[in-house]
């Protein structure tokens, strides 16, 4: 159909301009007519370019009421605008009534509600649609067994050496099984960096790509969003790292097949459970800690740097200070409640062996379950602070 020119250029064919008429009537009436025609053209336009059926089933807006009088001599000059709408021209200075606004008809979208489970599924879709997830989880699955293999090999090598003389023994000492279990979890504190980056990306990627706007528009309840992200990140990291620990266990078991290995003594029965589940748990806690740091920083490089600083740089500084200056011994306490060292202290369960040093300290050093509490405390603090920041800060 020939679309009429709408807007202020929609002028009808000149019908009354040929004759001279007094100014007032012509101007006002011409303006009225033009405006009426513009309105008709806009009202009756049917959008044709929508394809799916849901739009076609909507009825067109109702026609305006029929006019009172029709004094103008040329109503038929309405070209292609409105075959259905009658010409609405009247002598009073009122424009034709627009169709009353109707309530929107029930749409094709069934009434869904905002719910936490939907948000969790949404976060899963988001995380699994990104390549970074697969890379980081793949690196985790590779690094954990690799580190375990290296630690186990070191344990074995140590067992073949005489500790006093440093010479190779003819028959190797039996390998302490506790050392083997510790070596299964040997690389956990290093892989904590990888899972931490995963946790950071889960929140900072949204802020850096501005997709936080779309997310918060769909779900204005920010705490629900944070909760959904936390649940999703913990589930993914826990499962992947547990699988990684199992693979590390398998690798070490295969390697130590023909070594002579001692049995687990009575006090050490918890070691396998702590290693497997505790390793996965500490990686999950580190991911959540990094998530909190990411929520506070809301920038990927800043948050990654802050997280790595908490894990490695800060304890180094504190340890050096406590070693160098004897009167700053209490600084060592602070160093020992940093999350980085706590992971190893937790997993190694204070088993003194060839791998763990049995140096006695002047200051307080947490034992294994205290280290777990330290980790949980750090994570909880970080997550709470991060949630508060996300809740309060404007998204510009």
């Amino acid at each position: 159909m020939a679309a009429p020119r709408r807007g202020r250029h929609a002028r009808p064919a000149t019908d009354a301009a040929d004759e001279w008429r007094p100014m007032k009537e012509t101007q006002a009436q011409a303006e009225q007519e033009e405006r009426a025609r513009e309105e008709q053209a806009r009202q009756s336009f049917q959008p044709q370019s929508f394809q799916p059926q849901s739009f076609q089933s909507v009825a067109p807006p109702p026609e305006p009421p029929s006019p009172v009088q029709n004094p103008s001599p040329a109503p038929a000059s309405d070209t292609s605008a409105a075959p259905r709408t009658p010409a609405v021209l009247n002598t009073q200075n009122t424009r034709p009534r627009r169709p009353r606004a109707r309530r929107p008809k029930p749409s094709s979208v069934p009434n869904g509600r905002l719910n936490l489970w939907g948000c969790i599924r949404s976060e899963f879709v988001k995380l699994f649609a990104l390549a970074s997830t697969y890379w980081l989880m793949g690196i985790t699955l590779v690094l954990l067994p690799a580190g375990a293999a290296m630690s186990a090999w070191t344990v074995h090598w140590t067992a073949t050496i005489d500790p006093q003389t440093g010479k190779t023994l003819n028959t190797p000492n039996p390998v302490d099984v506790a050392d083997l279990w510790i070596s299964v979890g040997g690389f956990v504190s290093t892989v904590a960096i990888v899972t931490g980056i995963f946790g950071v990306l889960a929140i900072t990627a949204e802020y850096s790509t501005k997709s936080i706007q779309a997310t918060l528009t769909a779900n204005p309840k920010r705490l629900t969003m944070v909760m959904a992200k936390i649940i999703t990140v913990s589930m993914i990291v826990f499962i992947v790292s547990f699988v990684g620990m199992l693979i590390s266990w398998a690798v070490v078991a295969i390697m130590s097949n023909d070594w002579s290995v001692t049995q687990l003594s009575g006090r050490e029965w918890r070691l396998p459970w702590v290693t497997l589940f505790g390793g996965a748990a500490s990686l999950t806690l580190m991911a959540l800690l990094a998530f909190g740091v990411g929520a506070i920083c809301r920038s990927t490089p800043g948050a990654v740097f802050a997280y790595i600083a908490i894990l490695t740089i800060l304890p180094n500084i504190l340890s050096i200070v406590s070693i160098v200056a004897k009167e700053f011994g209490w600084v060592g306490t602070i160093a020992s409640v940093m999350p980085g060292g706590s992971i190893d202290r937790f997993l190694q369960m204070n088993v003194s062996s060839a791998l763990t040093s049995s140096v006695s300290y002047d200051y307080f050093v947490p034992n294994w379950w205290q280290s777990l509490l330290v980790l949980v405390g750090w994570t909880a603090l970080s997550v709470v602070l991060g949630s508060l920041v996300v809740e309060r800060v404007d998204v510009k």
Partner: protein
Amino acid sequence: MLEIEELSKAFRGKKAVDRISFTARNGRVTGFLGPNGAGKSTTMKAILGLIRPDSGRALIDGRPYDRLSSPMRAVGAVLDARSAHKGMSAYAHLRALALTNGIPKSRVDEVIAITGIDSVKKRNAGSYSLGMSQRLSIAAALLGDPYNLILDEPINGLDPEGVKWVRELCRYYAAQGRAVLLSSHLMSEVALTADDLVIIGQGRILQQVSVADFVRQHSGNGIRIVSPDPERVRNVLLDAVPGMRVEMTERKESDPPRGYALHVTGAPLETVAQTLAHSQTVVYQFVQERGSLEDAYMELTHASAEYRSTLPGTRPAAAQSQTAKQSSDGGFVNGQFDEQQGRGR
């Protein structure tokens, strides 16, 4: 229906939005116009809860945004074109948004078909052109088939067909009885699409009027004449009807290549035409023109434009419009037409 009541927000001490109140009614497209930096995006983000206002509130169908049980069903919002994660495909992005509100997968496919990004839905959003990203944002807004639409400059980056499509979409939604709030800085586009106008400048509402009334207010009864001898035209017309006003104006692109442009007000078309004809005055162009909406809008917001730019090598224009209004003569002698600035009066 969107109700904004006394909304205020200041960023670092500077008021971005200063106690604005308006209503976007059901069944109408409300055009939210203002120059850059006027506070349009801030207002829209405050409605959606992305920005917490210092005072005032915004209600959507009577409730604040974070109290809605199904936000995507109540409001569809297009804020920023590039608001999808660059590593995700359009399909994943839309599916993730749909899942939060319990919207089925079939609707995602429907919306992709409506907005026409079917062919690129599996590509990463980082590889999209601006038009495709804009369509993706519009798709995300339409996911819940919302009762209200909030569109923040939706036609940035769209080709003319896309612009026309957005216009039809807004009118379609309004015809169904929904409320549409459309923000733009282009008067011409908003005049075609909107029913109500809210003009904002420097955080304050300058005018709140319906489009029809705005058009009526700013349609002058001017006649534009291009003539080789403006003095003669002036004398002839003033002799015939003393109350007329004849002013020099600047030339336009569409003018004939020779002649001076004049703007005549205060007499009907026929009188002027017959006077000129009787006096045998030569004119190259004789056109009745209505006031330009663009000019009216510029005049309204000129004082509150945040960012004034100039051409390199020129002085910045200081309050030109005020000096223009004060001169009664019409500027024949002084020549108010400043070629370098490109604007007269």
